[in-house]
């Protein structure tokens, strides 16, 4: 007659085996999914920074930080190839955190770039108006000067004519 412990062990071993098989099959997929997630996150972060540039702004600091995060992902790939899964995961976590920080700062950068873009537009328009006004004033002065010169020349000619008549 089998002992209760023996019966328990016989009943639990198929379940345990099933769980081990399930774990072995799931972990590589989890790695693949994590890689896809981090790639998608990098695309999303890039698209948000790109929107700032498309609106006429700049965000050089955010671009540099995104590139640092991409370098971390690359280094993680190297570590994984060397068999150091823990270091690879750590690097990927750092990259993920860096990209999340960049995403959080995008709205502020967007507002700043919109402000800078507006200021640039205003300064260009004001410069154009200023140049027009100054040029027109200079033209008026030059025109008046020319007319005065013409009149003084005419006056000189009249004096010479009068002297000749006399």
């Amino acid at each position: 007659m089998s002992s209760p412990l023996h019966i328990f062990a016989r009943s639990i071993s198929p379940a345990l085996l099933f769980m081990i098989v399930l774990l072995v099959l799931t972990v590589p997929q989890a790695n693949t999914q994590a890689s896809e997630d981090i790639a998608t996150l990098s695309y999303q972060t890039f698209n948000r920074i790109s929107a700032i540039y498309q609106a006429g702004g700049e965000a050089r600091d955010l671009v540099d930080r995104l590139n640092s995060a991409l370098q971390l992902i690359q280094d993680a790939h190297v570590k994984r190839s060397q068999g150091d899964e823990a270091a690879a995961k750590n690097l990927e976590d750092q990259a993920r955190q860096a990209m999340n920080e960049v995403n959080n700062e995008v709205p502020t950068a967007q507002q700043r770039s919109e402000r800078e873009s507006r200021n640039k537009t205003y300064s260009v328009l004001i410069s154009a108006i200023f140049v027009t006004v100054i040029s027109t004033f200079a033209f008026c002065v030059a025109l008046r000067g020319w007319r005065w010169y013409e009149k003084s020349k005419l006056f000189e000619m009249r004096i010479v004519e009068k002297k000749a008549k006399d």
Partner: protein
Amino acid sequence: MRRRLKISSKDRRYLIAFVIAVTLITSGSALYTLNPPPSEQFFALWVLGSHAKTEDYYPDNNPNLKVAEEVNWTIGVYNHMGSLEYVVVRVKLLNSTQPSPNQLVGSPSPASPLFEFTRVLLDNETLTIPFEWKITNVTLERQSVLITGLSLNQLQLGGELVKALSGRNYRFVFELWVLDARANDLSFSWSGMGGRHSAWVQIWFNVTRTISA
């Protein structure tokens, strides 16, 4: 009594014409400053030799490489698309029989990449990537040489990487992929003037049948 500034009708015409001309010129300049016309958009991809020149691609200029012989190249990418771009350089190892990328139809090589270099490039920015590699292991199979170990920038690769008859005509293929914002995925081709374009470059080499350098 204040003197009134008299302007003759002739001068008034000159003044009006001048104001119109200056307004047109300054408006045009302002418009050009705020909305510059787009220039030709393109990417450039290249591979240079060990001293970042178009020479010295192989040690002693000999493309017949031995195992453990180090090769140093520099990969370059230039962004002239007028915008921020997410670029990926995919490195593939092929033999002469495997399909090359086809830039006419925008299709990449079907081979899997060994490695990818990813970077966000500003407009007018150039990316230079040191590419140091060496064959670490080969297996001789009758008439063919199978590369089974490769080191790329500290990345160690193993397995049946690529096989070539008599160890001749292997090639590294470098493909330029760009993030397509609409598809939200990488694309081997991009839209430019005159249609879609792709960029890829390959460098050939041979492997000698001796086992070690």
